[in-house]
């Protein structure tokens, strides 16, 4: 009987082909829009996170506790050499780079700018951030004897200096507070597209920075590193983090380091949800409308079915199954359209490059991302919703009174 009922339901759905196709297209477009939006949102947030983590941040960082709120240069990472060694041996970590961070000024004949002076280990840094790939003039710091300075492009422009020009760097030493000045040759210009770097950073070798600040050889304020699986950064409760948060150090993933961006992404997740609710609402009413229309033109038929002994419960099942078939046709259609649209747009990408959002800049065209979940969860939702909203017209059909139905419709 179940098989027969399924087949009867399918035949009823295919009975008015044009209406079924129109309804299925409407529902399918809703589903496709959902798949596409979800893919676009994933693409966007991946793009933003990538641009932030790849450019400078890294997937995670280690600091001495309190450094991120005070930026006091005397708050050094505890046992930095040891920590780096552990990171090197950790299979979940791809690369790590220690950094010296200090507030200072850079001046030229033309002007003076306050900057974050960053001391880097060129070889390690090149594997964590993209500073080495963002050199628009000159060259990246060299391993040995790299005594030059790299200026953010905006800093260089403001100071009206170019390659080979000399600038004066001024900082106050950590222990003594003595003002230290040095004249350094500009050996490269950095342009990442990320304002935080281009407008306010200058880079020297770690050794040079330590010398200027009067820090020991393993005196670093920050260790940035990348993970083999970035999702680990989103799992703040993983014991990975506890493992590196000891001896007064704190290890944090990018969501904590870029709380602003994280909030923006959470907000866009929320708007995806709102969109889903609206789209599914439309889908639900589309289904209900289609089912009601098909019931209204079959009042007489339902009257006959009930007269000859079809129980009300069976009529309910029949109509719900019809709704389910409509959903399945719609899902097939919608998944195909969603897949095609997402794939097509992903080929070109949508160009948001240069647009900045909460400190993150789109560096590459945004490509919507296809995930398996889009083709499991959303269709399942459509199916579930359909069965649910199909129940209303189904009960309506089951309540048809044969005597009345046949009198009215003849």
């Amino acid at each position, binding site marked *: 009987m179940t098989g027969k009922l399924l087949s009867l339901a399918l035949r009823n759905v295919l009975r008015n082909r044009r209406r079924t196709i129109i309804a299925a297209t409407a529902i399918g477009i809703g589903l496709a829009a959902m798949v596409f939006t979800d893919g676009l949102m994933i693409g966007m947030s991946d793009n933003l996170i990538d641009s932030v983590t790849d450019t400078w941040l890294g997937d995670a960082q280690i600091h001495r506790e309190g450094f991120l709120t005070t930026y006091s240069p005397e708050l050094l990472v505890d046992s930095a050499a040891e920590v780096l060694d552990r990171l090197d041996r950790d299979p979940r970590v791809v690369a790590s780079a220690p950094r010296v961070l200090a507030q200072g000024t850079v001046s030229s004949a033309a002007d003076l700018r306050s900057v974050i002076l960053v001391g880097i280990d060129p070889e390690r840094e090149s594997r964590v951030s993209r500073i080495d790939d963002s050199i628009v003039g000159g060259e990246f710091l060299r391993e040995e004897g790299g005594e030059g300075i790299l200026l953010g492009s905006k800093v260089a422009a403001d100071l009206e200096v170019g390659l080979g020009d000399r600038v004066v760097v001024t900082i106050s030493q950590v222990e003594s507070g003595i003002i230290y000045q040095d004249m350094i040759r500009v050996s490269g210009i950095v342009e990442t597209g990320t304002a935080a770097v281009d407008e306010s950073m200058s880079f020297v070798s770690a050794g040079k920075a330590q010398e200027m600040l009067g820090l020991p050889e393993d005196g670093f304020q920050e260790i940035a590193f990348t993970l083999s699986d970035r999702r680990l950064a989103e799992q703040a409760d993983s014991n990975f983090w506890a493992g590196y948060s000891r001896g007064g150090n704190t290890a944090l993933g990018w969501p904590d380091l870029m709380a602003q961006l994280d909030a923006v992404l959470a907000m866009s997740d929320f708007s995806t949800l709102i969109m889903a609710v609206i789209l599914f609402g439309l889908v639900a009413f589309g289904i209900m409308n289609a089912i009601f229309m098909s019931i209204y033109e079959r009042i007489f038929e339902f009257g*006959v079915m009930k007269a000859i002994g079809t129980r009300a419960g069976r009529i309910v099942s029949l109509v719900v199954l019809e709704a389910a078939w409509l959903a399945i046709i719609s899902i097939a259609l919608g998944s195909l359209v969603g897949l095609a649209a997402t794939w097509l747009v992903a080929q070109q990408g949508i160009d948001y490059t240069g647009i900045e959002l909460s400190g993150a800049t789109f560096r590459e065209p945004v490509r919507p991302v296809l995930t398996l979940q889009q083709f499991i969860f959303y269709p399942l939702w459509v199916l579930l919703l359909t069965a649910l909203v199909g129940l209303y017209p189904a009960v309506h059909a089951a309540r048809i009174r044969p005597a009345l139905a046949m009198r009215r419709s003849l």
Partner: protein
Amino acid sequence: MTGSEGLIVAENVRKTYSDDGVPVEAVRGIDMVIREGEFTAIVGPSGSGKTTFLNLIAGLDSLTQGRVWLAGRALGEMSGRELSDFRRDNIGFVFQAYNLIPVLTAEENIEYIMLLQGRPREERHARVLEILEMVGMKGMENRLPGKLSGGQQQRVAVARAMAAKPAIVLADEPTANLDSTTSGELLDMMRDLNRTTGMTFVFSTHDRIVMERARRIVVMRDGMIAEDSRQPGGPPQ
């Protein structure tokens, strides 16, 4: 009455509809007994209450007053679901038109009630072939209703009504949409089935050609029985 007087026993049956608050007395006190094997026509002018009366004795509509027994069971005492199953097992229906489910083939339409009853596939199939032959529609089992003429559709409807071997077949104007030749043929077929199988038939009609073939004619007027006559050659009373 006790309900054992015949296959169908109607006692002082009344039905009053409310038409926008105005009461319409469609059936006004009918007493009637239909015995097993009868071939009865209910005739009367339009609006005389034929359909209403048939619906009442089939349990498709509720009585305003009175009692109806079918095969010894009082219809008024059954729940909706019991009544539904009771109709499935005891009454075959033929309506004026659109009897068949359009997406099911002749065979599927005919076996539908047996399917609801949960009868095994072989039994259903054998019965379909047997009954199709009886209604002169052999070889048409795979046709969809849309591919059958009006007369053929009514034959399939009669086949469906009889397939599960109910106690009685009720037909409300089964020939209303047919031309007179086809009407005559359908009625001849039904009368043959009545004769060969002993199946009880009650049908309503406007049509003289149809009426003439009945063995018992009940004439209704204004919701009441005006005349009840038996034709010679009817079954032993």
